[in-house]
């Protein structure tokens, strides 16, 4: 097992390396370098950057050196927690991103658990009640979830909540909790708000998972071991949940890794619509104002997050299924 984990972890390293290069290229894409933008940005607000200040910054980021040196300097900083300077906010990028990244992780994990919590029982129900009215209903809702873009669901839900119930479903905290320091009460408040974005982001994913769960369970239901157990008089409910469902869950765990990029993707755009304090809105803003160190940091971290998530789900699958461990 340990050997498998190590082998799998080593495989993730080149991926992370390529991701860092892609993020760095994104930082370099806009015309002009960081310093000219920085000076222009300062000038726009009526300030003057001193020549000394500019020279120091130039040295720190290696802007007068070849690109690969700049990359090495940048990635060296990143590995030590320094993501560069935010052009717009005039503070270090690191001080802006961590709380938002933490909330992004919380939202993604919560969404994932939420989709499982919904998809597993519904999938099993659809399989055991194949072609029943309930099965058709869930299939229909599932297709709707696949076809309707997440941001549309978010828009419509916000509109309905706003104009019929006078409610604001945006944000992750109540107004009085927004700026409060972290406490138990704030965490409770977070969970009170988390389920709406989780439901919206998870909608598309849940639909897919229900289909998978239904198909997997259907495959298992007609196998001889199920018939044997039923013939021996095992109670229907116990039988279903103890044997076929457990086997059907395996592809689910491996699917979790593939689910993550979608969750992060969907989460980004939904959080823009719902203006959640997660990575999405700040990333969008950074891109619009060409605040590239900030944007690059987000792209890097969001991508790294999915790679690490996939790694964890692969390890979990190996732990569940010995065939993979020794395969």
């Amino acid at each position, binding site marked *: 097992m340990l050997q498998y984990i190590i082998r799998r972890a080593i495989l993730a390293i080149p*991926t992370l390396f390529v991701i860092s290069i892609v993020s760095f290229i994104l930082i370099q*894409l806009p015309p002009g370098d960081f310093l000219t933008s920085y000076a222009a940005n300062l000038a726009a607000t009526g300030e003057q950057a001193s020549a000394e200040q500019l020279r120091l910054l130039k040295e720190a980021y290696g802007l007068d050196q070849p690109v690969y040196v700049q990359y090495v300097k940048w990635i060296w900083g990143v590995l030590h927690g320094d993501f560069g300077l935010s052009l717009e906010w005039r503070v270090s990028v690191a001080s802006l991103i961590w709380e938002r990244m933490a909330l992004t992780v919380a939202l993604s994990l919560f969404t994932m658990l939420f989709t499982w919590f919904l998809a597993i029982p519904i999938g099993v129900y659809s399989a055991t009640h194949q072609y029943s009215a309930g099965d058709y209903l869930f299939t229909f809702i599932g297709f709707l979830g*696949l*076809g309707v873009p997440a941001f549309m669901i978010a828009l*419509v839900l916000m509109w309905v909540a706003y104009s019929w119930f006078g409610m604001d479903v945006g944000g992750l905290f109540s107004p009085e909790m927004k700026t409060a320091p972290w406490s138990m009460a704030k965490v409770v408040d977070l969970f009170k708000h988390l389920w709406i974005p989780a439901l919206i982001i998870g909608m598309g994913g849940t639909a897919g998972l229900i289909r998978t769960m239904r198909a997997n369970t259907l495959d298992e239901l007609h196998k001889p071991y199920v018939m044997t157990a039923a013939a021996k008089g095992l109670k229907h409910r116990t039988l279903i949940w103890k044997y076929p469902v457990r086997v059907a869950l395996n592809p689910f765990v491996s699917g979790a890794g593939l689910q993550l990029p979608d969750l*992060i993707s969907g989460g980004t*755009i939904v959080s823009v619509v719902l203006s959640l304090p997660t990575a999405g809105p700040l990333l969008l803003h950074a891109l619009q104002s060409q605040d590239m160190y900030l944007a690059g940091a987000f792209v890097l971290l969001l*991508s790294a997050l999915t790679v690490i998530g996939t790694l964890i789900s692969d390890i979990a699958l190996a732990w569940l299924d010995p065939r993979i461990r020794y395969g």
Partner: protein
Amino acid sequence: MIADARLPLSSVVTLPRKSLDEVELHMSTEGVGSARTAQPPAKSSSEEQIYVASQWRLMWWRFKQHKLALVSTFIVLFFYIIAIFAEFVSVTNPEDFSALYKNVPPQLPRFIDAEGNFHLRPFVYGLVLDRDPVTLRPRYKLDTSKMYPIYFFVRGAPYKMWGFISADRHLFGLSRDVTDMKLFLFGSDRLGRDMYSRVVYGARISLSIGLVGVILSLVLGILLGGISGYYGGNIDLAIQRVIEFLRSMPTIPLWMALGAALPPKWPPERVYFGITVILSLIGWTWMARVVRGRFLALREEDFVMAARLAGSSELRIITLHMVPSFLSHIIATVTLSIPNMILSETSLSFLGLGLRPPAISWGVLLQEAQNVQSVALSPWLLMPGLAVVIVVLAFNFMGDGLRDAADPYSR
């Protein structure tokens, strides 16, 4: 039907072809019948039809069984026809604005007037502007004293069809003599532009970007997937690594960053092309996986070996023998990836990182609906979203049916 089947073989061949479900029904009733009355020739004739049918015909029979897919195909075609003839189908120029008609709610064509009289020709009532006594917001009231009939093939705003045919006929609209009223089927936006015409014009970009993007990813996918599957070995390993890497990236943040990197000075056509390239960057991986899987399966087939022994060149084997046998799978995959492209373009443009006004796509139109207040005041701004949902669902069902039909021998 049973009587048909009992005809001699020669006459059956000249009969019109039956759909697969008919044939099957045929066979099942046959089975019971023949057990009792034992009439073997009839059975072989209906089976014969299946044996002699070409693969494409078998697929068509299979596809026809999937009623939802069939209906969806018509819906998709309907939308594409609208997109092609956007100038003609629209009521007015999509850029025409009017200070008099801001945020007009959708007007339903009516057949029955206030007195309960029926009119064969649909009409709309006039509009009067007044203010909400509480919020003082301008709002529109129906003026039931004025009726404006809707005519078909009416002369209206002049346009250039596909940019070079001058015309002024529209599918429907108010008479050109009416100057004190405009037709807003889907309402109007904050500048008084007709949402219906804008949605119709938006279809052109939104629907074509899906096609162009898919063609681009198809070329990349077939090329790289083909190389990967045909040669195997280290090349295969390398390409598979690249695919795995691209798959593990969260697409929206990546697309956002790339979309933001498109120079703002670019003309709309170039931005359009840039967006399709960005979307295909990830899209080709799905295509490549399917192509590779098919190549791996077919490489071992006897007919490929036979062609090779007969001295065919690699290119000839691939294009003449292998590609035709997995073309149907490709078509199904393509159909299923078009809706994703459409959704991605819509999402990007919605965020303001894709196409930008004056280009009109459904995503660009949805930018207007970005904040809750404007949606609450004029919910009809979500109309382009409805169009997206319908098209995406129709494409998904159609692709579903095609995927089932792509392998007509499986049950």
